[in-house]
Each structure stands twice: as structure tokens, then as C-alpha cells.
């Protein structure tokens, strides 16, 4: 995919404003909250501080690309556990969790907490987030 941006453009605003992929959210703009988390070559990164120069010729996956029809195991678990409250941070939460399960399909609770630490949910849905990840890992 080709997209023309300013030289100092970040991945977040390129996704949202140039490509219309608004599922990735702006939270703090300083890589402190995790709402903007996407995958860069399978690794979870904060798109708000990722310059486009770092993205050239690499693969980016956003929440929209996780599955076509809400069928990713995490998305199914997220609905079953009724995780989101307002939902604003959940794209970032799910992308962060998806990166974890890609590398470790049987994470311990401690590993889940360590991986998800720093992805902030202002509604406080953390316990349901952990339950949904544990449920997914059990079913994988």
C-alpha cells in the first residue's frame, strides 16, 4: 500500500486521517496509554510515536485487520466476557493481547499482567480483560 504523508508524519494519524482506519485510537500522543497500539511486523507498537519512516516496507496490522468478521478468538472472548465499557481503549487492549498470544499461546496470569501493563482503561475493565485473555488461551 502506498500513502503520501508529510515527512514527520506518525503512523497513527496516517492510519486515521489518510487511510480512514479510525479503529486505532488517539489517547495521549506520547506512548503512555496504549490506545493506539497496532502490530508492526507482528510486534505491538504505539502508533502515535511511530514515525512513518520506520514503517516503510514493513507490515502493519490494525484492529480492522485482525479478522474480517469478529472471528479472532480474542474478539469472540471479548464479546463473551462483555469486556468493553465505553470501548475507547479496547482496540489497543486487543492488539496488545493478540501480540502476546502470537508468541505465547499459554501465558500465565503473571505473563498476561506483565504484557498488558501500561495499556490503560479509564473505565477500569481490567479484570474482564484478563478473563477474556485467559479464556482465549484455554481454547487455543
Amino acid at each position, binding site marked *: 500500500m502506498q500513502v503520501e504523508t508529510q515527512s514527520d508524519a506518525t503512523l497513527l494519524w496516517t492510519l486515521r*486521517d489518510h487511510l480512514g482506519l479510525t479503529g486505532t*485510537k488517539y489517547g495521549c500522543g506520547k506512548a503512555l496509554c496504549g490506545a493506539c497500539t497496532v502490530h508492526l511486523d507482528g510486534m505491538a507498537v504505539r502508533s502515535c510515536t511511530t514515525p512513518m519512516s520506520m514503517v516503510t516496507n514493513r507490515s502493519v496490522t490494525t484492529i*480492522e485487520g485482525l479478522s474480517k468478521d469478529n472471528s479472532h478468538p480474542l474478539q469472540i472472548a471479548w464479546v463473551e466476557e*462483555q469486556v468493553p*465499557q465505553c*470501548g475507547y481503549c479496547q482496540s489497543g487492549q486487543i492488539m496488545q493481547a493478540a501480540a502476546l498470544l502470537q508468541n505465547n499461546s499459554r501465558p500465565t496470569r503473571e505473563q498476561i499482567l506483565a504484557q498488558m501493563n501500561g495499556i490503560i482503561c479509564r473505565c477500569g475493565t481490567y479484570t474482564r480483560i484478563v478473563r477474556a485473555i485467559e479464556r482465549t488461551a484455554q481454547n487455543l
Partner: protein
Amino acid sequence: MENAKTIISKISRRKFIVGAGGFTFLITTGVIWPKLSAENKTANDGTITAWVHLQPDGKVIIYNPAAEMGQGSMTALPVLIAEEMDVDWSMVIIENSPIIPEIYGSRGFRGGNSMITVGSRAVSGYYEILRQAGAQARYVLLYNAAHKWDVPIQELTTDAGVVIHKSSGRKMLYGEIAEFAKSPDKIPKIPKEQMKQPGQFRLIGKNIPRYDIPEKVNGSGIFAMDIQLPNMVYGAISRSPINGARPVNVLNKDSILEIDGVIDLVTLEHGVGVIANSIETAFKANKQLQIQWSEGAKAANYNSVEAFEKYENMAEDASIKGSVIKNKGNITNALQNAEKTYS
């Protein structure tokens, strides 16, 4: 206050209901209009409600009157209508209602009809009015089925999207009724004893999955920030670092305006706003603003750490008597009579 006729023409202008087929339950306290195009009906001083649209395929669109993003009333309010209308919940489509308080407001809130969504009051504020609307919508369905079959309306019952005439064993789906439904001249207010009793509830009080969750796990849910309109411009505000300080001057105004994509600067009482053709540019310019703030703001000499210490000392000093704001019960007696105490 607009009259009903004005309101109806406003609705048709806004075209908020799909034009294709079906039946919209447009209810006032005494009259129902079968279609939005029925503008020749006389205006009525009753409150019109237009929460439900029934499609021939049986799908029921319920217009949610509360602006709600996460506490669940977006699901809970349509449940109230669906319960009394006796709709099959899997056939319900929830859409947000347009902002027309005369039609979608609740009288449960202070003073007239309003559409405020505040203070955890949406469900309790709409509880009676939406159940009544659902019960009246069900009455219209029964009325039409009774005419079709030429049987007394009292002989009809419903069961999750179906009207049933028990003695003849006939059934009619709600969607079928939408094809030929006509409005009765008058819709009675349904008395409470004819509405469902709590033991008969199919939906109220049950764990209904929230309607808005699926769109919140795939990024398709639209938040205010996701709305993009043609030729939209974006604003970002630099607020004063001290409460009460006003912007006096932007020292680098010219160089900010030279940034590619910056459209204008706006001076506000509490800060300076940048208008730009993209949010990223607005943020970037915002960061570069050099603002001179007014001196002497009331909060300039306020130190929250010192204030906290002061309050802490006051709280610990038994000689300082606080002023009583509210007093209820007797704590000494309550403690003495307590079954268990924890310390």
C-alpha cells in the same frame, strides 16, 4: 413549544426513518398516525412518540433516545419497549434517535420533555414511558390482527413476535401485520394491570448482552473523534498553566501561521486555539505556541501540597470544630447496638 404538525414535517425533512415499507408507530396520548407522510392529520397537543419501526421481515428498529456510550442504557432502554411490545429480541435493531426532545424526551426528568443523559437516570427516567409505548405498539398489532381475523381483540395474545388466536389456533407474525397495518383512531393508555407483571418479564431483569459490544471489539464503533466530514478543519487548544490566567499575546504568531496547513489562531478566555486542516498539524502547531499569560491569576500563589498539609492538620486537631452540613442518626447509639464491630 412546537405543535405536532410542525414536528412531523421536521421529522420527514430529516428523513430519519427508512422509507421502504413497514409501519412506524407514531403515538400520541390519544392518536396514532400510521405513516410519517400522514401530514394531513390534525395537530394534537399530546406528546408524540416514534420509537418503533416494524419491517415486513419482522425486524424491529427501536430508536434509543439516550446518548450513551458504555453504561448499557443503549441496550436497556430498547429492552423496555421490546418487553411490553413482546418482540423477539433477536429481531431488534437499535438505532440512535434524532435529537427532538418533543418526541424522544422523557417526562420523567425535571420539567417537560428532555433528552438529557445524566446521573444514572436514563433507565429510571424512561422506565414507565417506554413500557407504555411498547404496550401501545402491541395494542396496535392486536387491533390489526383482530380486524383481519374478525375476532374480538380480547381473544388475542402475543408471544415474542407472534399474535395468537388461541381458540382457532391461528398465528400471525408481527412482520406480516406490518404489511397491512392501519392505525386505530384512538389508542388507549394501557393501564398498569394490563401490562406485564415482573414474573412475566422475558427481558427486563435478565442478562442481555450489550448491543454495542461487537462494534467495540473490531474498531468499527464510531466515537466523536472518528467522525470525518468533507472539508472538515480541526482545532486544538493550549490552556493556561494556571487556573484563571488569560492569554495576553502569542509571541510567535507569524511563524505559527506559516506552518503548512495552519488556518488560523483563536484567542479564548482560557487559552489559544489553533485551527488547521488536519489534527496532526493542529497538535504540532499547538506544541510550538509561545504564549504570554496574564499575571496575577488567583491561583498563581496556590500550593496544593501546602493546602493538603493544612487540611490534614485541621482534621487531626480536635480543638477545631467543623461546621455540620448534614446530620442523620446517632452514631454512638448505633455503635453500641451494633451486632459486630470492626476496627
